[in-house]
């Protein structure tokens, strides 16, 4: 296949045909290097928008980042008139897809906007306009363009609450929004023509979709029955026209645990991370480890934060049931290696895991409380108050640590007694 013509002889951007009735009307952004603060891209990205022509109407699916609206409108105008547009679908409201929406609605005021149920309040907050009328849709809702039908799939949290996919039933094309997308800019556009984008595909999943693995699996449950699809057309990166099912399969693989765990189904896992300058926090960690080991069906692991890069620890934490951090307090704060790991956990789901904190200190020992608050912020349960020990732990304090480990392990198995307190007894 030759490189698609993205502009005409006069250098005016042109739509690219994906089928007789479907065109790409998006824009390329080759100079972008950082996306949304958290993502790097070595060759830019694309903002993919599409146009579908039916016998009784034209639909525009997604728009582009505001600064690229010129290319988008020029491509749109190369294949349709504004007064033909009857349907506008936004699969995702993030500004890189909704940037040209206000102007599109102004140019095509007769068009009806279709967004997901959860997008309603976001639309208002993003566009700061009340004037837009829209139809909220859920899985199974359809809109007709005459001989073409769009059907919606509610796929929330991939990667915002509002995200959805749109299926063009007659052509078996899935407009997937950010799902199956990547930041990769290549004028050859098609997955079997562009340069090697596998890294970008995996990297995008790891940073954008990984925190929402449960939602990915739920979405795949409603996407897989649509297979075989002729094409998956994502909102960023190459069009997946060659073997689109491989990308669906890969999402399924990536949403499972990487290596088969040796932990049996009735066991819980507890990871203890520590860092220590004079060995006091380390001794506490070892006592907690010992205490937790006394409980059957809890698989306990002990790690020195100095002994690894962050990323393997993030992988371990993702599949663990409980996490305990040991940090000394230095100058009124927990230490940097602990914060570095804690600030790297946004890419995995932490909700509902058990958390605990301990540490030795010299003066005041604020670090333990700070890390506890951070764990709560990450939506962990922190049911057992952390242990702070001034400098070198005594034998009695070491026993306290063993008891802490024991209690954490019991809590993991739901064996701890429920606590009943009177408000008056709380400090």
């Amino acid at each position, binding site marked *: 296949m030759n490189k698609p013509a993205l502009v005409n002889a006069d250098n005016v951007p042109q739509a690219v045909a994906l089928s007789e009735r479907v065109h790409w009307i998006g824009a390329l952004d080759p100079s972008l290097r950082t996306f949304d603060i958290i993502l790097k891209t070595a060759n830019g990205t694309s903002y993919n928008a599409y146009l579908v022509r039916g016998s009784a109407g034209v639909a525009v699916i997604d728009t582009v980042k505001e600064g690229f609206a010129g290319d988008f409108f020029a491509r749109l105008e190369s294949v349709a008139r504004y007064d033909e547009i009857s349907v506008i679908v936004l699969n995702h409201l993030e500004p890189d897809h909704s940037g040209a929406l206000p102007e599109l609605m102004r140019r095509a005021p007769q068009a009806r906007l279709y967004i997901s149920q959860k997008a309603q*309040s976001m639309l208002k907050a993003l566009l700061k306009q009340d004037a837009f009328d829209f139809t909220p849709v859920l899985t199974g809702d359809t809109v007709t363009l005459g001989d073409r039908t769009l059907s919606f799939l509610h796929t929330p949290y991939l990667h915002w609450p509002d995200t959805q996919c749109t299926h063009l039933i007659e052509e078996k094309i899935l407009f997937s929004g950010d799902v199956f997308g990547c930041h990769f800019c290549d004028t050859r556009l098609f997955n079997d023509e562009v340069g090697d984008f596998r890294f970008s595909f995996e990297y995008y999943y790891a940073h954008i979709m990984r925190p929402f693995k449960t939602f990915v699996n739920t979405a795949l449950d409603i996407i897989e029955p649509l297979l075989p699809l002729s094409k998956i057309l994502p909102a960023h990166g190459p069009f997946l026209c060659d073997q689109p099912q491989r990308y669906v399969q890969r999402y399924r693989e990536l949403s499972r645990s990487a290596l088969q765990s040796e932990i049996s189904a009735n066991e819980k896992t507890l990871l203890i991370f520590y860092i220590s300058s004079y060995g006091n926090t380390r001794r506490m960690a070892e006592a907690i480890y010992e205490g937790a080991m006394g409980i059957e069906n809890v698989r306990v692991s002990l790690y020195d934060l100095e002994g690894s890069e962050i990323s393997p620890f993030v992988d371990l934490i993702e599949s663990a049931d409980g996490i305990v951090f040991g940090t000394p307090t230095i100058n009124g704060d927990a230490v940097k290696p602990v914060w570095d790991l804690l600030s790297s956990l946004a890419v995995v789901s932490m909700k509902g895991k058990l958390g605990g904190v301990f540490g030795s200190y010299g003066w005041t020992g604020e670090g333990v409380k700070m890390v506890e608050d951070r764990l709560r912020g990450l*939506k962990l349960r922190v*049911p057992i108050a952390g242990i702070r020990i001034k400098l070198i732990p005594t034998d009695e304090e070491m026993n306290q640590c063993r008891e802490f480990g024991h209690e954490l392990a019991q809590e993991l198995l739901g064996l701890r007694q429920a*606590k*009943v307190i*009177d408000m008056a007894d709380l400090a």
Partner: protein
Amino acid sequence: MAKASITFEDINVTVSAPAGTRVIEISEKVGSAITYGCREGECGTCIMKVTEGWNNLSEPSVLEDKILRENMAGKHNRLACQAQVLGGVIRVKPV
């Protein structure tokens, strides 16, 4: 004084508290994972799920209802910084 019994399911702690106490005052003392932002009913950070005893909490104000709606809260959700315990048995957990 009338008392309410409120259980924080994430930490399995039950507190007997005087009627009129806001959930925030109790949850922070016992260390439930309900997290707080503005603490004034405006940011929606402290949305919690009420699993039992919805009617044993004070009615949500118009402002709280608005914040819950804007944050796409579910129908069993309240703001922990606004809801007061009135009596009886209540069970809550972080969302």
